[in-house]
């Protein structure tokens, strides 16, 4: 990548929906996709006289996320009301956290593309709040009939705000991927952008070296990004746009009010949004219907201890203890905790991490994706597959036969030996193979000469002859023995 004449500076504000059965302040279900307004009760639709009661599960999940994001968790945190009028906000205020959030000052390390070290993105704060409902209308239409679905109103959200530590659109995407992976591992959120369980806004500007020092362009908030890919594209577009505007106008931070722009997925441009919040004053004040929440240092320790191995730890362990390269470790860890567990067992049983990783990537995951199942529902247990890999490694099966055994087990289940028998693969005694190879080497001096002159390919003809004499021999083993014999000649 050619060096840019500026540095891109990005901070993200991410909202993720917590994986709770019920809403943050009432007992209504949080399931996605129910018919409009069927998951509501007097509390979440803001009937007169109702009161919120905090969902302890949501708080526990938020604590978990906060701990995993290396945050300083507050021992005293309270709720505040954020007041504004909007039809999808039935109470006229959102219960959120203002000056005493759940936690502050954390970080998330994200794998870096061109640096050996991970990049550390710092987190400003993480807090809990309730979601609003959904307006199903076009406000500009004015007279058009507007409809409101309050199923989502009161759903627990975690708001995560980063420092402007992100330095490229690609890094923004990587950060989001890593955050999603982490929250998936913790079972805190499924972070599904299509279902709205992860939403992200970005603040972006450029730092441009000039003879007078570093010039910063005005910060722009980018909204409406509906996928990680869109985040990357929108930020790349916005950076170029700001560069263009700066070259044209020379306008710097502070010289124009902060602008909000929306990403237009189809046109692939950002456009200015008339922000309804531009001059709004939310009149935050402490929520009198809820009591502050206190967390003891012991509880915080308990949460930290309960996190288990997180993606970054697992990547490190797979590389260090199982000899995987960064790419393979990444692929496995990105598949989620249950795939990693499958791998660990498989590698332990077959005794070869690299082989286990290959089998998972090439065979197991292919089936998992085809069948659209989770690896926990994959029909061949790791112990069974491990035995198959051991057979291949020990020379009892060649790889194509190993694959046939795999396919057989997939269809019929059972033990690997049963599959080998059913497929009619006979074990060939290694002494028998040795004898056969000696015979072939002796009978083919021309081939031997070619091999000795460096043309290892010539061995193919010996392997072919061996297979003709005994179809059950393992070609790799034949090759191996022949090479040994020739070397000793």
């Amino acid at each position, binding site marked *: 990548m050619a060096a840019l004449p500026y540095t891109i500076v990005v901070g993200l504000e991410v909202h993720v929906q917590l994986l709770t059965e019920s809403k943050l302040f009432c007992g209504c279900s949080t399931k996605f996709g129910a018919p409009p307004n069927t998951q509501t009760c007097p509390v979440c639709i803001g009937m*007169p006289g109702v009161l*919120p009661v905090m969902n302890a599960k949501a708080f526990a999940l938020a604590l978990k996320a906060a701990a995993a994001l290396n945050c300083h968790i507050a021992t005293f945190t309270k709720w505040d*009301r954020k007041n504004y009028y909007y*039809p999808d906000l039935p109470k*006229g205020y959102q219960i959120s956290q203002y000056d005493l959030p759940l936690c502050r000052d954390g970080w998330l390390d994200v794998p870096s593309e061109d640096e050996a070290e991970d990049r550390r993105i710092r987190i400003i704060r993480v807090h809990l709040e309730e979601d609003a409902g959904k307006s199903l209308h076009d406000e500009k239409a004015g007279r058009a009939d507007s409809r409101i679905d309050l199923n989502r109103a009161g759903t627990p959200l975690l708001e995560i705000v980063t420092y402007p530590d992100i330095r490229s659109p690609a890094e923004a995407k990587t950060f989001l991927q890593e955050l999603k992976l982490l929250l998936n591992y913790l079972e805190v959120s499924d972070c599904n952008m299509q279902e709205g369980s992860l939403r992200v806004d970005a603040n972006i500007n450029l730092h441009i070296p000039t003879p007078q020092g570093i010039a910063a362009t005005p910060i722009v908030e980018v909204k409406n990004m509906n996928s990680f890919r869109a985040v990357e594209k929108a930020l790349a577009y916005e950076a170029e746009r700001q560069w263009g505007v700066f070259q044209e106008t020379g306008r710097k931070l502070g010289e124009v009010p902060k602008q909000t722009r929306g990403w237009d997925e189809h046109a692939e441009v950002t456009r200015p949004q008339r922000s309804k919040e531009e001059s709004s004053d939310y*009149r935050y*004040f402490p929520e009198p*219907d809820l*009591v502050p929440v206190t967390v003891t240092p012991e509880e915080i320790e308990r949460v930290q201890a309960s996190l288990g191995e997180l993606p970054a730890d697992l990547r490190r362990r797979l590389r260090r203890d199982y000899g995987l390269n960064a790419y393979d470790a990444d692929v496995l860890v990105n598949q989620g905790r249950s795939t990693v567990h499958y791998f660990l067992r498989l590698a332990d049983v077959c005794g070869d991490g690299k082989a286990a990783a290959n089998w998972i990537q090439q065979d197991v995951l292919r089936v998992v994706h085809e069948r659209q199942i989770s690896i926990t529902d994959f029909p061949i247990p790791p112990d069974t597959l491990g035995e198959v890999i051991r057979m291949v490694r020990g020379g009892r099966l060649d790889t194509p036969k190993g694959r046939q055994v795999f396919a057989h087990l997939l269809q019929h289940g059972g033990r690997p030996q049963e599959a080998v028998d059913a497929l009619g693969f006979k074990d060939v005694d290694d002494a028998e193979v040795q004898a056969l190879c000696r015979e072939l080497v002796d009978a083919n001096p021309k081939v031997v000469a070619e091999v000795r002159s460096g043309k290892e390919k010539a061995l193919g003809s010996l392997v072919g002859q061996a297979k003709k004499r005994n179809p059950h021999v393992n070609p790799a083993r034949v090759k191996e023995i022949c090479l040994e014999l020739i070397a000793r000649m």
Partner: protein
Amino acid sequence: MESFWELTARELSDKLRRGECSAVEVARACLDRIAAEDATVRAFLSVEPDWALSQAEEVDRRRRAGESLGPLAGVPVAVKDNLCVQGRVTSCASRMLAHFRSPYDATVVDRLLKAGAIIVGKTNLDEFAMGGSTETSAFQFTRNPWDVERIPGGSSGGAAACVAARMVPLSVGSDTGGSIRQPAALCGISGLKPTYGRVSRFGLVAFASSLDQIGPLAQSAEDCALLLEVLAGHDPRDATSLDRPVPRYASELEGAIKGLRIGWVPEHFTEGLDGEVGEAVREALRIYEDLGAELVEVASPHARYAVAAYYIIAPSEASSNLARYDGVHYGYRTDEKAMLADLEEERRLLRESGDEAALEEIDSALVRLYRRSRAGGFGAEVKRRIMLGTYALSAGYYDAYYLKALKVRRLIRQDYDRAFSQVDVIAGPVTPSPAFRLGEKTSDPLAMYLFDLYTVGANLAGLPAMAIPCGFSREGLPIGLHLQAPALEEVRLLRAAHALQRNTDWHRRRPGSHIAARSELRG
């Protein structure tokens, strides 16, 4: 034989238990009494004869069947119309909710019904409980049964007047700054605001959430105890409700006054206090002294800031609590067709005049819907408080108003803590004067707010407090005695009140009948 309406709740309940009368008989008598008296007093916004009778029939049936019945089985009770009753209108005396039917029961309503009480109707109040005279009700004035030209107090004016006029023996009200105690005092009955969190607020339409508390109004401290026992208790649906055992209030009333340290605050007896009220309160203190209590002067240095702090905190919370009434989801909504037509007309005029700037600024249909619905649905006092609160919470003013008020609130709490380290209860006047005339203070909101001078402290500090009758003015208007106690010391309050009531008969006096006065008033 005495009429049922002359009996206290305790007496009625005993008669019912002994089978000397049926719940249906009592309910009928109560409904008849309401029909006769309320045409003048206008304490009720709604009366539910059919429902009341069917509740009473159910109590009688269960009694005949030998089933166990609750402590208030068959006793009629009135409920302030800011408490939600499922399927019935809960109007808060506001146009905004004039036709609003609650989809659920408030916790206290649930508890009343489980206790066997017969809910006969819902009582009038100041709109959304904002006021001290029940004059801000969007629907009707309630009259003081002692003088129908005077206000019953507020905001639980209907709740107090219906007990004073002996229409029901028990009534449930809410108290944010004195809304139970002040009308109780002005109507010559007993009323108790419990400790914050003692009674669940779930289903009480919020005015100021950190101050609101539900409590009983009745003819005597004994009846207040009976009703409080039913209302109080932890509720998992209210996060601010206290998870503490509920004493058997009604069985804990007897107790010696000897040695009770009663605090009095000199500032309560200085300028601003009506002479007759001061004299009646001092007389009550003398009675306590005769009974063996010790009077101790206590300081309340921040009390004079209480009203100011209260009128920042309460409207701030109200401005947020009342945001939900926006015409979108339920309640009053402006005539949309007319609204859109007006908006279109305004736009047309602006286009014609070429005023592009104004055209840019004009309300969207949605904003106009909010504005019109709220303008039409709320009355003047509610609007005034929403504006006060919105202002106090606004950026740039928050620290100077809201935050400062919270500091004062803390100081007032500390005053109480210090005082209660020296005394067991604090006694004083409930109001600066007896009931004023209808309309007398409507054009002077500040005078109206200052009427809360003695009562708001207990709300700011979250403490239990009570009003009980302690005399009458020369004009025959009731005067109340204010008793305040430390948190969760309702038993102490009730004992002190009960002791006075065993030694005086102020609480037994009742106003004359209003059946005759009706035609006269109509004319």
